[in-house]
């Protein structure tokens, strides 16, 4: 697999988008990953599941704000000048 920097950006954008579109009410609640179901104890260790749920919620919040602007160059198909690779 030969990567270019631009393909890394594309892949990162697609992954972040995939996390952001997980719908809170329709989907996450049904598999028990809603953010209001997990915050049980205020003990020392948050545990992997609550960390994951926090991460999903943060990604969704960030993407709704700044992330949409960052995705515009990719969606519009703008060519960014520079040595990004053969498939710009």
């Amino acid at each position, binding site marked *: 697999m*030969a990567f270019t920097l631009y393909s890394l950006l594309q892949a990162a954008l697609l992954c972040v988008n995939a996390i952001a579109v997980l719908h809170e009410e329709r989907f996450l609640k049904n598999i028990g990953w809603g953010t209001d179901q997990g915050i049980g104890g205020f003990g020392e*260790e948050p545990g992997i599941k609550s*960390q994951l749920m926090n991460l999903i919620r943060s990604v969704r919040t960030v993407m709704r704000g700044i992330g949409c602007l960052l995705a515009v160059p990719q969606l519009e198909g703008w060519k960014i000048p520079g*040595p990004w690779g053969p498939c710009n």
Partner: protein
Amino acid sequence: MAYHSGYGAHGSKHRVRAAPDPPPLFDDTSGGYSSQPGGYPAPGAEVAFNVNHLLGDPVANVAMAYGSSIASHGKDMVHKELHRFVSVNKLKYFFAVDTAYVAKKLGLLVFPYTHQNWEVQYSRDVPLPPRQDLNAPDLYIPTMAFITYVLLAGMALGIQKRFSPEVLGLCASTALVWVVLEVLALLLGIYLATVRSDLSTFHLLAYSGYKYVGMILSVLTGLLFGSDGYYVALAWTSSALMYFIVRSFRTAALGPDSMGGPAPRQRLQLYLTLGAAAFQPLIIYWLTFHLIR
């Protein structure tokens, strides 16, 4: 300094020749400029002075002064923006190396089995720079090793008559992208497992970058001794690197908090360390096998 005297002599000759002719359009104020040492706001005033002797044209002098002040302003702005994203002091810590450290660290990367003490030393809560502590990670070796790897890849491809400049750029960016992916995966793992340690992003970048040394050694042995030599070197450097990573991460994760935390978190830390170590031989093989035919 030799430059300055050369141009000064030129300028004086120029002025001596121009003195008998009365300048028709402009006043010859070049003498006036050189007699005002504090006339320019830019710190590049010395350079502006020397070139003024060469030109002797007042309009160009003004343009030169304006350009140098703009350049210094731009430089300040770039510094300020850069400081907001990357703390240059923290970065300087990773490049504070000397020859003895580099030699010993390279030896440690190739043969880590006899090293006893893997703890990073502190002095008053501040970690010692790599110059004084062999166990401290640095970014000098990974950077140099990356550049050497790119050059070596170009040479290997050239020997097989498969070289072209685009392939070189592709090789470089592929290697860089894999390291960035590994650092991101490690950061994600550290966040999910809530590992409390001193491992910042640059530390992880340093530890991930040490695999370039293994890649260089494998490719070099492959070029010198053929395919068998490549696999032997690959096995040796992979196992050495895996041992190095496991020992370094164990002491880094447990060091500041010697209790270690509750059992599930320790298990997650262990899985993370083992996963990072197991990933190294795969990526070394993936990035170098196409160079050895």
